């Protein structure tokens, strides 16, 4: 048991190193360096300098060292929590990420809670009367939702609710002069601004999770496995909670581990469209400005958070399920 936990942690550590190397190599594996292989304007200003100045700048950013030395140096800095300075405005990357983290986490938390609250009853109802009208309808809707890109959904929602009906604001987080409103009015204002982004962030997860809940309930609570329980006269509620959801909790752990990458991808698109100052729009801005330190910092943070989620989910599995514990490797 303890051996299993240690083994999982060790392999997680290996993956962590691999992830950090990937994040670094992705951006630095190119021949040349950020100073000359950037966009054409950068190239021009750098090439106008004298050779000595060029060498000086290279040395300043340690670009004159071989790749593995630069990786080691970068890793040391990252381990100390130093993600470097933004190319764009010379501010520490950590500071830029820190001031936007709250917004993104807040919106995603609302979206996650909403997803869970809607997916459980939707999936449960579909499993309870599988093959019924609701099951078939929700199945078709879910199938369509999978294929709808978030940016298209966002545009259509904007057109319907903001332009045609004028119920909700087009973008941003607060209205002009929103700071002067009373507490209640400000809350309503915030909710109106968040409604469309939250819908766009949650419908994909809702589709996935509701089908997932349906499948695992069918298997454990309403399927053949529970035939004997039903024959003994076990009621629907008991079937659902004692047989179904308990079994479904385990695979859901694995799912939770992979929530982070989906959230980040979603935030990049949704925050960009609705002009919300969060991590996603920071990433888009950094990408368009070729701000390599910010891009790398965000990539690293997302992947490390994902890895922590995945390893935590595996450890939870290990603790909860004796079968996994006995299986080798």
């Amino acid at each position, binding site marked *: 048991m303890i051996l299993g936990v240690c083994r999982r942690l060790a392999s997680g550590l290996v993956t962590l190193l691999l992830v950090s190397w*990937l994040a670094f190599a992705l951006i630095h594996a*190119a*021949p040349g360096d950020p100073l000359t292989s950037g966009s054409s304007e950068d190239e021009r200003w750098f090439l106008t300098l004298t050779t000595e100045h060029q060498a000086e700048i290279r040395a300043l950013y340690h670009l004159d060292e071989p790749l593995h030395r630069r990786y080691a140096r970068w890793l040391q800095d990252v381990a100390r929590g130093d993600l470097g300075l933004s190319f764009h405005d010379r501010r520490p990357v950590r500071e830029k990420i820190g001031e936007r983290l709250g917004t993104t986490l807040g919106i995603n938390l609302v979206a996650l809670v909403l997803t869970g609250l809607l997916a459980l009853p939707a999936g449960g109802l579909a499993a309870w009367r599988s093959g019924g009208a609701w099951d078939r309808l929700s199945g078709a809707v879910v199938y369509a939702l999978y294929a709808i890109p978030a940016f*298209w959904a966002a545009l259509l929602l904007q057109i319907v609710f903001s332009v045609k009906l004028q119920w909700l604001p087009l973008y941003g987080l607060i209205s002009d002069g929103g700071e002067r409103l009373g507490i209640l009015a400000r809350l309503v204002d915030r909710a109106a601004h968040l409604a469309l982004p939250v819908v766009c962030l949650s419908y994909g997860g809702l589709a996935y999770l509701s089908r997932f809940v349906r499948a695992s309930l069918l298997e454990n609570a309403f399927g053949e496995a529970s035939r004997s329980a039903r024959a003994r006269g076990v009621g629907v509620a008991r079937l659902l909670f004692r047989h179904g959801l308990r079994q479904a909790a385990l695979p859901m752990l694995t799912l939770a581990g992979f929530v982070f990458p989906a959230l980040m991808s979603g935030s990049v698109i949704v925050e960009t469209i609705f002009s919300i100052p969060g991590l996603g729009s920071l990433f*888009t801005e950094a990408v368009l400005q070729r701000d390599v330190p910010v891009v790398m910092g965000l990539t690293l943070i*997302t992947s490390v958070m994902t890895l922590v989620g995945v390893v935590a989910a595996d450890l939870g599995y290990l603790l909860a399920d004796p079968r996994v514990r006995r299986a080798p490797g």
Partner: protein
Amino acid sequence: MPPGSARRLPASLVSGAAVLLALGLIAIVATPLVREDAYRVDLDSILSSPDWSHPLGTDGLGRDLGARVLCGARISLTVGLMAAGLSLLVGLPLGVIAGYCGGIADRIVSRCVEAVLCIPSLVVALALLAAEPRWLGLLPDFLRIALVLGVTGWTPVARYLRAEFLRLGESDLVVSARACGAGSPRIVARHLLPSALAPVLVTAAFTVGASILLEAALSFIGLGVAPPTPTWGGLLSEARYHVSRAWWLALFPGLALFLAVLGCNLFGEGMRDFLDPRSARRP
């Protein structure tokens, strides 16, 4: 299972194939016919709503939206198919090595898969395109994007192939082949791969859809295929600037994108049901 029922094609496979076939036809036949219209600027009919002369309306420069949407099919399909092909090219050998050799090779490949899975593919693609390494810059736009998507999209292929190989490796199939004196390359090529290929091809079909979506997302953000080349993601990106005046700019390119992805997913799902009838019978 009643005899004969296994041969009937699932409805999803037929409808998915029909959608993809139609898109393929559009990409090959219709795109050259409307190419001129797609680029012709007409400042007299800027942002005109759909009517007889422009069935899907016009954009901010008076270009015919219908022609531009039709042209987008070619880029989307090319990028999607190439990205899926590339992920097969990377994923197949890695999956075979991990699943057949096991041991240390399996550990290495599995760690790599886990590492790549941890970085969202949109983030990897954007980071790669932002860093603009020189070897990428020399390629034409669509090739560059297909390459980036292939680099990020190979993990499901490798994972499924590895799982299939692990499952089949213990089976009588392999044991008897080995007893007959077949060597490893022969076992892999003649016995394991043909049996394991079905789920991999299903995965590839879904990869095409996912790649089309990612390409559109990249073009939407502004790092995909550069304008004025019409792509569905790029058209939607332009629609953002006219969102309060021209609903058709947002509706039709998105609809095309939605149909293409839906077609890929239906095709993949149908193929899975066809190749593995057990999963189709399940409620």
